[in-house]
């Protein structure tokens, strides 16, 4: 099944994917993905385990190299640029990792200030002010001297968002923002994403399999299944979709037993392959 859904490049597209293919070794994970992300919108990438959604996100932030295809980001095809150019683009994007990925040997404040200290020549006092501002934005004022291990799961996520915001990015990526959080804390993180969207009109891309959270924050959604785009559209369009895979995903219908086993194996091999590269 090869459905790329690529629309003509619109002037306000922030990111454009064209026939993107990503492989780990012999195995192709993404089989020709194509869609646009508009400036200022919140796009949720939905998909089950092993669908390739995390790989897609890793490719978008430059952690994986596509085997073919194009990713246009700020007028540059990041599938084909040098690592110096990629570093320049990376200063304009922020990424919040699933587990937060805060540096355990540094305080929350040092974590958030790190990109500023690395990439700017700002005075310490200025960095201090920006740091307070960013922590305030995510509701963590006064926590700059805590170590990440002293924070709860939800607070770690917030601190990670603050670090992602440090360089005032134009695009913010979230990997499973509500994974491992209880519903109330997860709702708080969703709320934070909504606030960021309203306050800064940032382009936000969220990878998740949490339907409730997806429908709350998304302007548009993309459903990825087995490395292909199955459907793309607004929340209403997704809700009223009659596509069998979309219905199955939204109505949470289990896979038939036989193919489930295959999927499970596929998922396992994917999990196994993913980090080793």
């Amino acid at each position, binding site marked *: 099944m090869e459905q790329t859904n690529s629309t003509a490049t619109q002037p306000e597209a922030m990111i454009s994917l064209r026939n993107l293919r990503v492989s780990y070794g012999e195995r192709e994970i993404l089989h020709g993905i194509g869609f646009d992300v508009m400036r200022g919108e919140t796009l949720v990438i939905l998909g089950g385990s092993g669908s390739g959604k995390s790989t897609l996100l890793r490719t978008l932030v*430059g952690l994986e190299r596509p085997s073919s295809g194009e990713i246009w980001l700020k007028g540059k095809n990041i599938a084909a640029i040098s690592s110096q150019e990629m570093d320049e683009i990376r200063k304009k994007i922020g*990424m919040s990792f699933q587990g937060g990925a805060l*540096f*355990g040997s540094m305080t929350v404040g040092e974590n958030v200030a790190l990109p500023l200290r690395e990439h700017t020549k700002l005075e310490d006092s200025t960095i201090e002010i920006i740091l307070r501002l960013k922590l305030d934005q995510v509701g963590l004022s006064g926590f700059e001297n805590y170590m990440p291990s002293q924070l709860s799961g939800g607070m770690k996520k917030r601190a990670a968002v603050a670090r992602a915001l440090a360089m005032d990015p134009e695009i913010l990526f979230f990997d499973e923002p509500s994974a491992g959080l209880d519903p109330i804390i997860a709702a708080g993180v969703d709320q934070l994403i909504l606030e960021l969207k309203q306050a800064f009109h940032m382009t936000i891309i969220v990878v998740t399999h949490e339907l409730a959270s997806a429908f709350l924050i998304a302007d548009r959604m993309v459903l990825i299944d087995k490395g292909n785009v199955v459907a793309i559209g607004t929340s209403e369009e997704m809700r009223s979709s009659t596509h069998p895979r979309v219905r199955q995903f939204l109505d949470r219908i289990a896979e038939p037993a036989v193919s489930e086993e295959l999927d499970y194996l596929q998922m396992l091999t994917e*999990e196994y392959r*993913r*980090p*080793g590269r």
Partner: protein
Amino acid sequence: MELTTQIGESVTDGLAYLGALTRLGVRAAYFTFIAPFQGKPLRLQRAVSQAMQTGVGALPILSLITFFIGLILALQSAYELRKFGALNFVASAVAISMTRELGPLITAIVVIGRSGSAFAAEIGTMKVTEEIDALETMAIDPIHFLVTPKFIAMIVMLPCLTIWANSMGILGGALFGVAQADFTLVRYIQASLDALFLRDISTGLIKSVMFGITITAVGCHEGLSTGAGAEQVGRSTTRAVVVSIFLVILVDLVFTALFFFLSER
């Protein structure tokens, strides 16, 4: 046929591994010597705190071990020397074997156990928790940020520790000398110094610098190539220790042979 394929495979694997270590070392050298002139400042502060951990932190255990090694060396050489009534040569035997060989080697092995394994565990954990990925998405090179300070710390600290280890070894030998071979402490140390040439000490120090480079490269490489999951961190740590010990002995052999043939002329 099967055997030749296997030998061929392990040789290429070994060469690939050495290649990866070299690449890591070259990148770290680039960030130490070239990048500071291109606007990427060196992280001396991180190197200093790393040096405190790997160097100063190792002093107590290293002192104890090398003191004992010196004492053992004295006992072992005395066993043979007393047959010739040459117990007063104990001092030179201990001094030469400590500075030329055992000082650098024991220091390297203690540092592998304390720091080489810690490098692999630290970087491996960061890999598993996506912290390395986070560095990359922030446009911070993990080699620049994590690996280079470790190289600097180790290259500076290993020779320092080796000098300390040499002195502690000689002190250990002195304990035997004073108790059993009619030396006074001052005369023992004088005898040790008389037996040593500068070459004995400097070859040991050159070796220790090479050991430092080897241990750091292996520890960091094993950390960076950690797979997914906590158990992989354990695997990398174990591998870092085993591979480091092997490579340190190999480097030791190469340099000892080199010094041997150079001094012949």
